[in-house]
């Protein structure tokens, strides 16, 4: 029997057990090793010269004054990069996954490490200075004289037909999927529409980006320590940008101080330090400042939507029509949020026909990329808002209207062609409404009103579309001293991999957690892997680990039967021992010498976690301040490995969702293209006092397409949160005739809505 078929949950620290994290002892003592914690002998330091303009021709760069400053080793520009044969980063903005929506692009804007000709967003790297100290490098960076010819800025997609960034229209991709909805809209009893612009936000990992590069001339090999979300993708992209074979690049990441998607792709600096190290023949280190991070980290969301939902007289959905324009920024990094959103626009509802158009528009802003549930929060917001608007206008009960339209038979093919394998959408709705005491709300509303507050409640469903890099590999080594090493190509950014992956092995081999050691984050150690994103690490890691463990059992069985002098078919593996069936003769897993099993698999099949969230708010009519007073969720990630870790992921996701719903926004000045929210004072991520305690529950409907029943977890906190918060606030403001508000629901926006 394969471990893939195992459904046991008997190990004390095994699958399904809420065990404390193994990595915590290290992290709680400050012993985590983040990229800036690496140092190499003789290292020099880089500082980046960034464009102060949103859009400008680079006329010339005079490096002389900077080069003459004390301690300066090199000043490198886009011309130097071109001279050395450096290439744009080989991004793949359009997913090759055959199960996903394929976007048709007319132009994919390249992302050079240092553009020689033109800067296209404020904060774009245009030169780097390498010096003996950080301060010398930063001082000299201020003396690199760049002559710019300022061109007009284009910061929103509504200005997409304005000045061009490239010799190509700013709208660079345009695709429509689904069927014809005209007939359905004609016969509809009700049609509701929504036009909304989703605020641009960014990931804001607490660890600023950092990289340390070196070059070994003898071995012709670059080594880059980088705060990236997956060493293999970074290796491919660094090698591509440097124009060298992948074998000449090694990437190492130990601890990653947060990712949330915005670190999935390579940043120019990670390749620049490697190149600079080769030029100056010394290791080169670069660490981002916080304002640099706000300017040059990738951003997310920023989607303009026009949507219409057709319903019959009973409230059954007949058709959905959506038109999305995604602001992809100055360079084509990732259009995945747009296509994922297109694919799950109908969410968990049965909509017979849908027509979904998606366009990507370039602008003089930082590129956008996946962030906490790439593309799904935007479209969940849209459909859940449409449903609430329909309920309000047509007199349906919000919960009943949803229940009437939820998909209940599986497998279900949605209008974009995705096949949802399994689920219990009605079940999670009923459970979360119970958890949130939906029925008791009117009493709470009255009580709040007596205190002068407007209380509202709202909820929303979600479905994820988890795919990600499809290839993963595990190598598992059983060491005779009683330890098991797991070599895997994923990388934790706080998801507790050392614990949850060890739980699998503890379950299958009946050993203790401390016996298992997870090895990741080094391309020399793990030849293949995909990193952490799109709920892929456990989902794919568990499968390749189960196969690898199966191989170990087979190897072990062979050796055991030789030692025990019986036929292989007479030996069974249970509780960590190979036992001769029907006897008490056995031999332990660790008594058979070194056992190694590995497995490498490519599985592009998507996965569909789902769930439902209820948010309850109070609005102060005098100030418009929204206070989240309660937030309840039920999430289904299929089979859960460690509930504590899953709840933690949900909590963080909720906080990010509430942050975007109420406060966060990357704001650009529409005239100058300057970013106005480039510090913690102006980009308002939530602080502790702004969030309530959360009620989070896990539902475990096993996935039928995953051998272990897993769907992947971690993103569900955010995905429905934007809709749930907005629905709750609009509910609180119903008596003011408010039908919709765009995010973020700042007190100013809410207060103005109440003055109408």
């Amino acid at each position, binding site marked *: 029997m394969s471990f893939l078929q195992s459904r046991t949950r008997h190990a004390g620290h095994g699958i399904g057990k809420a065990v404390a994290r193994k990595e915590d002892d290290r992290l709680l003592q400050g012993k985590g090793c983040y990229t800036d914690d690496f140092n190499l002998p003789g290292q020099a330091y880089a500082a980046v010269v960034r464009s102060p303009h949103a859009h400008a021709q680079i006329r010339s760069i005079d490096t002389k004054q900077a080069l003459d400053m004390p301690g300066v080793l090199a000043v490198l520009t886009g011309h130097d990069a071109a001279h050395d044969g450096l290439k744009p980063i080989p991004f793949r903005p359009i997913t090759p996954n055959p199960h996903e929506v394929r976007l048709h692009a007319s132009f994919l804007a390249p992302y050079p490490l240092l553009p020689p000709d033109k800067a296209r967003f404020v904060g774009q790297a245009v030169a780097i200075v390498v010096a003996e100290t950080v301060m010398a490098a930063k001082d000299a960076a201020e003396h690199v004289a760049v002559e710019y010819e300022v061109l007009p800025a284009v910061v929103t997609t509504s200005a997409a037909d304005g000045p061009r960034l490239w010799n190509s229209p700013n709208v660079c991709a345009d695709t429509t999927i689904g069927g014809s909805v005209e007939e359905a809209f004609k016969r509809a009893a009700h049609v509701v529409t929504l036009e909304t612009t989703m605020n641009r936000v960014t990931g804001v990992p*607490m660890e600023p980006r950092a990289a340390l590069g070196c070059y070994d001339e003898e071995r012709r090999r670059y080594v880059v320590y980088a705060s990236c979300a997956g060493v293999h993708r970074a290796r491919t992209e660094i090698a591509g940008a440097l124009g060298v074979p992948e074998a000449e690049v090694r990437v190492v990441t130990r601890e990653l101080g947060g990712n949330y998607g915005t670190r999935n792709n390579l940043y120019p600096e990670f390749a620049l330090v490697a190149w600079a190290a080769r030029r100056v023949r010394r290791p080169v280190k670069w660490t981002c400042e916080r304002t640099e991070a706000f300017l040059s980290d990738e951003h997310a969301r920023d989607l303009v939507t026009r949507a219409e939902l057709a319903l019959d007289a009973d409230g059954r959905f007949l058709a959905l029509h959506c038109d999305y324009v995604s602001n992809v920024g100055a360079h084509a990094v990732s259009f995945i949020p747009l296509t994922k959103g297109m694919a799950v626009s109908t969410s968990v509802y049965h909509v017979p026909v849908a027509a979904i158009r998606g366009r990507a528009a370039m602008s003089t802003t930082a590129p956008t990329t996946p962030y906490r549930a790439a593309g799904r929060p935007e479209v969940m917001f849209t459909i859940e808002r449409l449903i609430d608007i329909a309920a309000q206008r047509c007199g349906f009960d919000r919960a009943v209207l949803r229940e009437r339209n939820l998909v209940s038979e599986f497998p279900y093919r949605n209008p974009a062609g995705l096949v949802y394998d399994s689920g219990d959408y009605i079940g999670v709705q009923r459970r979360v409404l119970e958890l949130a005491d939906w029925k008791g709300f009117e009493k709470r509303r009255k009580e709040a009103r007596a205190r002068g507050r407007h209380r509202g409640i709202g909820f929303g469903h979600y479905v994820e579309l988890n795919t990600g890099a499809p290839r993963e590999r595990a190598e598992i080594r059983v060491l005779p001293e009683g330890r098991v090493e797991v070599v895997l190509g994923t990388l934790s950014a706080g998801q507790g991999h050392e614990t949850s992956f060890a739980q699998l092995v503890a379950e299958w081999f009946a050993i203790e957690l401390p016996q298992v050691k997870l090895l990741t984050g080094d391309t020399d150690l793990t030849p293949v892997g995909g990193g952490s994103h799109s709920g892929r690490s456990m989902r794919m890691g568990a499968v390749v680990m189960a196969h690898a463990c199966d191989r170990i059992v087979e190897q072990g069985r062979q050796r055991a039967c030789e030692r025990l002098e019986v036929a292989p078919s007479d030996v069974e593996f249970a509780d960590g021992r190979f036992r001769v069936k029907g006897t008490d003769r056995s031999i332990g897993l660790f008594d058979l010498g070194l056992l190694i099993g590995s497995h490498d698999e490519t599985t592009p099949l998507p996965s569909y976690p789902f769930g439902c969230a209820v948010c309850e708010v109070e609005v102060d009519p005098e100030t418009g301040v929204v206070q989240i007073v309660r937030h309840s969720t039920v999430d289904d990630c299929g089979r859960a490995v460690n509930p504590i870790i899953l709840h933690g992921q949900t909590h963080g996701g909720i906080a990010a969702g509430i942050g975007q719903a109420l406060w966060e926004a990357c704001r650009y000045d529409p005239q100058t293209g300057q970013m106005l929210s480039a510090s913690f004072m102006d980009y308002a991520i939530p602080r502790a006092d702004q969030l309530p305690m959360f009620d989070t529950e896990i539902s475990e409907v096993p996935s039928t397409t995953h051998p272990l029943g897993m769907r992947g977890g971690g993103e569900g906190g955010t995905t429905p949160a934007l809709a749930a918060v907005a629905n709750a606030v609009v509910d609180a403001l119903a008596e003011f005739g408010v039908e919709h508000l765009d995010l973020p629901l700042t007190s100013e926006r809410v207060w103005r809505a109440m003055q109408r």
Partner: protein
Amino acid sequence: MKATLDFLLNGTRVSLANENPTRTLLTWLREARGLAGTKEGCAEGDCGACTVVLADLDPAGMLRYQPLNACILCIGALEGKEVITVEALKKEGALHPVQQAMVECHGSQCGFCTPGFVMALYAQYKNGTPADLNDAIAGNLCRCTGYRPIVEAGARARGLADPHHEGVEDAERAKRITDLPKETTRIGGFFSPLTLEEFADHLVAHPRATILAGGTDAGLWITKQHRDLDQVAYIGRISKLKVIEDTEKTLEIGAAVTYAEAYEALARIHPDIGELLRRLGAVQVRAAGTLAGNIANGSPIGDSMPVLLALDAMLVLQKGEAIREARLARFYTGYRRSILLPGEFIRSIRVPKLAPGARFAAYKLSKRFDQDISAVCAAFHVDGSKARFGFGGMAATPARARRAEAAYAKGVEAACTALADDFSPISDARASTWYRIRAAQSLLRKFHAGASPRALLDIVA
């Protein structure tokens, strides 16, 4: 006079002779001492990832523990103190209760902000204050956990066993701190005197010296503007500047008294002042920053000045041996400019207490409740026929609304109309001109109507 910096690091005496005293504690810890557990998240005191705990003896001689942002703290300010970093909390194989509670509650995910939270909770654990754990971690940002498990960990730590015998540890620490050298320090252009006289003389001789108190602003000159501060006079060890004199009519606060130290006395004048101070930075900033520093810097959005203007605070200024007094209301002459003469310094702030029957209120409008920049900060004080309204965020300096004050006798609406003539504030990302004027008028009406700020959430975006 000595030429070394003497302090304690995790129980060990440190005596530095060849270090730049304006180097930040964070870079010194990470680069010179290899203690990389303390993290840089922003280098401007906004995120708390660099939080360390400083143990020292308070003015009454009692051992206290304060969380501070190491990113903007100069090592020259550490004398007489013990720096405790996250690496020192686990002892003899046992995590500290706050660490243990963080594990049990799953309070750490990516772990980068974790050391800062651990140290903020450690200070709270040691002191038992602030009682509200949200206040204890208001200066720390986390992007992974949503904060709930961290708040739970802070509560749970109290109930856990005490494996390190904190009481014994405290006594040993107090002894170590007492034994530190008490001598004036001079290293190059850095001067850290023990007496007011030395300081006054030094400033006359070096009128261009930067006066360093908490460094919550000067620290950013170093980390963000990369300024080399060659002449620095640190006032944190001058006992005469650490005094709070509490008399029947006034409160006199020495220039080196921190917000944390002045908090109780100021809050006794009026609870609104306490509430405003609770929102001025966070624990880390209030443990370092001083009223005098806030005043001397003269930022138009400094949050302490509106209150002090409304109370008509007097500044006691000293140059050499000469002492003069000046009204805070007459102190500023322009954006970050004041009447201070070369070589002159603020010695103390004399804050008149409220007369019986006087009405007072203070308000702060910002995006978030904790640690945020004010869009508008206002304080109102009416005593009989005399009205004093202090504002921040409305002009190039903190300022009184003199036209509105004069018009208030004619009614609140007259005062609101006049207020629009008092100020022409800027429009920026934080608030527009229109908004600032309207908000200032509304706050005046709110004061007039007798609304306490604590009855409402004074947050805007």
